[in-house]
């Protein structure tokens, strides 16, 4: 039944073919190495690394939703304002009206879903360009945040809510000196699990006669993957252990990675971006799916807004301003196409990390906010140019 004629190319050819897949990851490592050297090792100090995670968590969370939007060929400019607005709603509920934390949390996610639905409705069913709808949304929710906060900062939040951002997972084996063994253990388990599943999938593919990466390459790749995860787990474990946010983020990345690559709904989203008319003539409900990607974006923007508010421990009218730019940039740096149909969750996450490491590294180096923006802008342009050049070749 299957086709066993697929020839194995030489190892050199294989590595060259796959270089592009790993190019983004390599750039991230290069940038990290650069700042690690330039900051005399400050970048990867445990405290700073934890901070880096906390600082970028909300960008990564929103990038997951934005990737789906961009893949369907749309854009959402309102996410920053929506995150700020939801943070404000959370503050009003919890601080002003003393609503219990879990209830307020769920209410805020629902608000996000409603906002996404409202915007998605115009985009999907009325065919109004998403750029315009979400530009309007950006203004509306920025204004509404200002209005419900009456122009003031509202805080502090109840301590249980703050734990969302500033908390760490509980230590099961306390008293092991400066190290947090539970976090290290989780890291190690994760690393083993990842290597195991990729080995299993490789074996399965080989048994179906599909071209797989050469064994040596696979072993090297797995070893590097294992080492990197354990290394970072070690760093994190030597500060205060795994931040709660990192756990949420990792779970979401895994979930969205799975949905985009392995599920019917994920395939349909890519089909819409690839050719909406062909997709709709293949029985895919393009309008409903586009609508749902906006609802999803609303929920993730709300979650990001909650994480950000919890981190600042206060809701300010200015919260979320400009987040949309970092989020969109993360997706494009990560290889998503502005024409739709192309983009990976892993790419968007790496794109967000590149932005985060640059922000953090340049701040440590004392680069002013002015030139930070210039450099980030140029990196965005450069990354996309490189991608376009690669595709023309």
């Amino acid at each position, binding site marked *: 039944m299957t086709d066993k004629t697929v020839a194995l190319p030489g190892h050199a050819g294989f590595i060259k073919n796959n270089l592009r897949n790993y190019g983004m990851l390599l750039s991230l490592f290069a940038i990290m190495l650069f700042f690690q050297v330039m900051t005399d090792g400050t970048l990867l100090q445990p405290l700073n690394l934890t901070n880096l995670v906390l600082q970028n968590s909300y960008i990564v969370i929103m990038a997951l939703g934005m990737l789906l939007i961009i893949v369907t060929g749309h854009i959402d400019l309102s996410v920053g304002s929506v995150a700020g607005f939801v943070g404000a709603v959370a503050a009003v509920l919890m601080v002003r009206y003393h609503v219990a934390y879990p209830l307020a949390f769920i209410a805020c996610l629902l608000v996000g879903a409603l906002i996404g639905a409202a915007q998605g409705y115009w985009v999907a069913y009325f065919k109004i360009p998403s750029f315009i709808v979400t530009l309007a949304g950006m203004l509306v929710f920025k204004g509404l945040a200002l209005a419900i906060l009456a122009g003031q900062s509202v805080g502090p939040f109840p301590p249980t809510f703050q734990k969302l951002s500033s908390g760490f997972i509980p230590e099961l084996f306390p008293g092991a000196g400066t190290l947090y063994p539970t976090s290290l253990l989780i890291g190690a388990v994760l690393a083993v699990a990842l290597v195991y599943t990729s080995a299993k999938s490789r074996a399965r593919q080989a048994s179906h006669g599909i071209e797989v990466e050469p064994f040596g390459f696979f072993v090297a790749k797995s070893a590097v993957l294992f080492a990197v995860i354990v290394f970072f787990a070690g760093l994190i474990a030597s500060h205060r252990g795994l931040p709660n946010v990192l756990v949420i983020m990792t779970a979401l990345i895994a979930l969205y990675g799975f949905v985009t690559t*392995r599920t019917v709904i994920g395939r349909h989203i*890519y089909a819409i971006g690839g050719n909406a008319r*062909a997709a709709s003539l293949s029985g895919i409900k393009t309008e409903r799916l586009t609508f749902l990607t906006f609802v999803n974006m609303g929920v993730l923007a709300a979650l990001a807004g909650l994480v950000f508010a919890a981190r600042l421990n206060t809701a300010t009218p200015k919260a979320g301003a400009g987040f949309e730019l970092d989020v969109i940039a993360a997706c494009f740096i990560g290889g998503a196409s502005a024409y739709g149909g192309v983009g990976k969750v892993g790419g968007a996450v790496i794109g967000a990390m590149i932005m985060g490491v640059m922000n953090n590294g340049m701040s440590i180096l004392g680069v002013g906010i002015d030139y930070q923006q210039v450099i980030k802008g140029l990196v965005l342009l450069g990354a996309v140019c490189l991608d376009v050049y690669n595709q023309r070749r």
Partner: protein
Amino acid sequence: MTAILEMRGVSKSFAGVQALRDVNFTVEAGQIHALVGENGAGKSTLMKVLSGVYPHGDYEGSIIFDGEERRFRDINDSEALGIIIIHQELALIPLMSIAENIFLSHPPSSLGVIDRDTVYRRTQELLAQVGLTEMPDTLVTDLGVGKQQLVEIAKALSKRVRLLILDEPTASLNENDSAALLDRLLAFRAQGIASILISHKLSEVARVADRITVLRDGRTVDSIDCRAETVEEDRIIRSMVNRDLAHRFPQRTAKIGAPVFTVKDWTVHHPLHRDRRVIKSVDFEVRRGEVVGIAGLMGAGRTEFAMSLFGRAWGERVSGRVWLDGREVNLSSVAAAIDAGLAYVTEDRKELGLILDADVRKNITLASLGRVARQGVIDDMSELRVASDYRNRMRIRCSDVYQQTGQLSGGNQQKVVLSKWLMTDPKVLFLDEPTRGIDVGAKYEIYCIINELAEAGKGVVMISSEMPELLGVCDRILVMNDGAFVGEFAAAEATQERIMRAIMRNKEMDKKALQGELQL
């Protein structure tokens, strides 16, 4: 008379398909020269060679205009000499005024500032020449198609025009507008402007043309001097279609069973002009194992008929009843139509059929991912197995099923689209121009697939503008014109001439009916 244009030995091929072979074509000064032929006979290609759309070097042969050999690099070169082409799809900008459209590329101006008075005055003059009384600042979108066509001609006249080329100018015009436009051509002839008229409407051609040239399969097969000889429509039709059909189609013994797909009273309105009926109370039936062909000219409503049946993918205010396998079904969405057992292979595979950036595997499984998934999770190995299976069965030539579909040849792309629809396991397949733009070998393979489908007891409906293929493949051929079936032929009794006559006759009848109404 002296020749203003002489095209000598023009040949042109596209990726191995010969579109023009050694065509000789002469237009004399002040002559209206009609160019007729089937869809795909090479008329448009010849005109694109002439106007420089295909630059010198892209074709063989030579173009002599005004006694000199010309080597046009692009359309500007030919326009500079006064060769102006007006395409079937009008090139006007709807939200600009008539005057702005006419003087779009070179408005009279000084120092880059447009001289609006001159533009206005000259537009008035030009409109008078084509018989329009509209104000120059009327928006083009507020004009009917007939008047838009005349604006295009006025635009041509704003340049120094020596030879006017009109590609089916009356295809979307009503009787009065067509007559007005043809009168313009006669008036231009009196002023010494030559024109080339491409048209399917033989009565029009006979009325205005001084000479008629017939193209078939990229060759000139007949040329009639209307002054010296009487114009017989039968002769033109015979020249248009006469071809050797032997050995181009695989044989099949038809085993026709019970009706599998029945349509009654199917009516569809235009999505934009909601009062215009595009499909008019059509009844239709396909039986198991039967291949039904639908012939007709472009714009007859064939694609609209098929697409409206396929989950109302086209049209508004769709009404009518449909039975599949004797059970009445509701085809209100594409997904419902697929579930019911309908498949529609689109006429435009690149725009509507495929995701060119995605690999072959993803395209094949797109319409039936549920078959390789459990609880919404795709089983990638089973997907790969199914896709490779179709690749082997349909002989899709690709390096593997992970190859990007956009990299395949037209024929192989079409096989990917067919695989996609076969995977949905349909009872009835609509194939809309399934062999358009693919080479002869791949065509033969597609015909073989159609035969296999019919032998497997499916109902196949083939829409095609290539009559030989309808005759070679179908068991029954219907002729559609203006949103209704106007003729039906069993395979044994069908000939290209009879089909073409059914199409043409009906055009004439339309015309007479319309005139009758006008007289009342």
